[in-house]
């Protein structure tokens, strides 16, 4: 899926730790799952879903950066990944 690497990148945009970790995990998992798809209609379905989700991640990633909160006690402060 061409959309997967960009989904990963968009997931990293989340300022919120829990959302970021969740979407990173889910993007990786669904990428792996989709690799095994064979039927053309399944592949195109997965592609459309991934594209839609990419749009959501992009918008919500931006919103997450507009409304930021303290980092959690499990989050290192110097983690400059975005």
């Amino acid at each position, binding site marked *: 899926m061409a959309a997967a690497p960009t989904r990963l990148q968009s997931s990293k945009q*989340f300022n919120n730790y829990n*959302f970021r970790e969740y979407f990173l995990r889910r993007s990786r998992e669904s990428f792996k799952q989709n690799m095994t798809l064979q039927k053309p209609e399944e592949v195109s379905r997965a592609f459309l879903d991934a594209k839609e989700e990419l749009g959501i991640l992009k918008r*919500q990633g931006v919103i997450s950066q507009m409304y930021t909160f303290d980092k959690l006690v499990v989050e290192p402060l110097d983690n400059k990944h975005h």
Partner: protein
Amino acid sequence: MLRSSFVRAHRISSTATAAISRYALRPNGNTSIRRSLASSASTVAKAVESDDGLSIETHTDVQAANKEQTNIRTASNSIKSTTDGISSGTTALNHAYRENTGYGTRPIYLDMQATTPTDPRVLDTMLKYYTGLYGNPHSNTHSYGWETNKAVEAAREYVADVINANSKEIIFTSGATESNNMVVKGVARFYSKTKKHIITTKTEHKCVIEAARAMMNEGFDVTFLNVDANGLVDLKELEDAIRPDTCLVSVMAVNNEIGVIQPLKEIGSICKKHKVYFHTDAAQAYGKIPIDVNEMNIDLLSISSHKIYGPKGIGALYVRRRPRVRLEPLLSGGGQERGLRSGTLAPPNVAGFGEAARIMKTEYENDKKHIERLSKKLVDGLLANDHTNLNGSALHRYPGCINVSFAYVEGESLLMALRDIALSSGSACTSASLEPSYVLHALGKDDAMAHSSIRFGIGRFTTEAEVDYVIKAISERVKFLRELSPLWEMVQEGIDLDSIEWSGH
């Protein structure tokens, strides 16, 4: 050294027993610390300049939080140096944070039974209805109304789909509290000419219990069924309690404090056999355990959106259409929602709720796998400590709700010492008062046990790192508090804890 002076001050003698109230570990100083925390928290939001010169209100307050934390520490230090006897609580507070700087300050959220974070996908759906699509869904003369009406009906489908219901059977309400009230009061009132009896259980959520109590004032008999030590209702007892004038049996699906799953299918078939309506409060169960209203013979079912990563302030009631369940509406008005719940629907909330329900279904397997894995890890980690036990059935349970008792530690003190983890000692409605949980009492736990219980909620967004942190933090601080605890000392001296009269409630 300080610790030993504390212990000396509270050395148990035959006359001092009464002094061991549950406040023994909470000197007065804590309340002022709490208050100063709250006041400084209100000043944290500050404006930040963005690249293009726009000023955005933001909530970044790492600095403020650091300062605040330093203040708490100095405050507790000063208390410690001025008094000798009561230093324990503040010492515990010093341990309430990981001393390790270089990490954030915001607590880990583990109170998923109280409410869940709103899923970004849900918010993405909702925003449209706060910006362009603002029509009243009941306006049928123009496209503004049609647009939102379409969204509402799509959401209704998603909500119905999770429990294998028809979308016509879903009534949107303000939440599970309203749904539960609607059922207990509405069904009882509708059939009040011939039926005067309601059956429910002792471990229900407060809103069912209080609604049932209210019906007692209207002349109804209410049977509150006991539960066994595992928190499960006895099916025989339930069947025996059904009378010819029973109109409703209301048993919750998943308990909000202990996570126990009641045998819905069995209860459903008993109710069907005796022709009484079966209502289940599925606020904590909807989308999290498999529910099929037809297979389980459920006639009415309450749902809350904010427990499934949806918006707050909305929920639904499933009302069976065939055979039709009749109920008297609580609200009179324009007759929306099949006349059962008048009032304009809130399309942002409805659409968000629908999206949350849709995601609960599509992500069911992933969420289940994730929550089960973390839950097992947390339970194993917590129970590895001495004198801890899991409350409620170990078999019939939703893994995302874990209630553990830490004997000889006072639950509220532990919560005070766990400022870096957002937890609760029970349901949100009883945690404000210091009453021990009535749910744990119903399981036959004594006051001491009920006081020392903490509920952990794991959800879709909980991470493994958080679980590791929690296990470590709890284990350390339970050990620490026990060393301070007069109770722990009494146990080691062989004093029977049941002889203590708890004061303060």
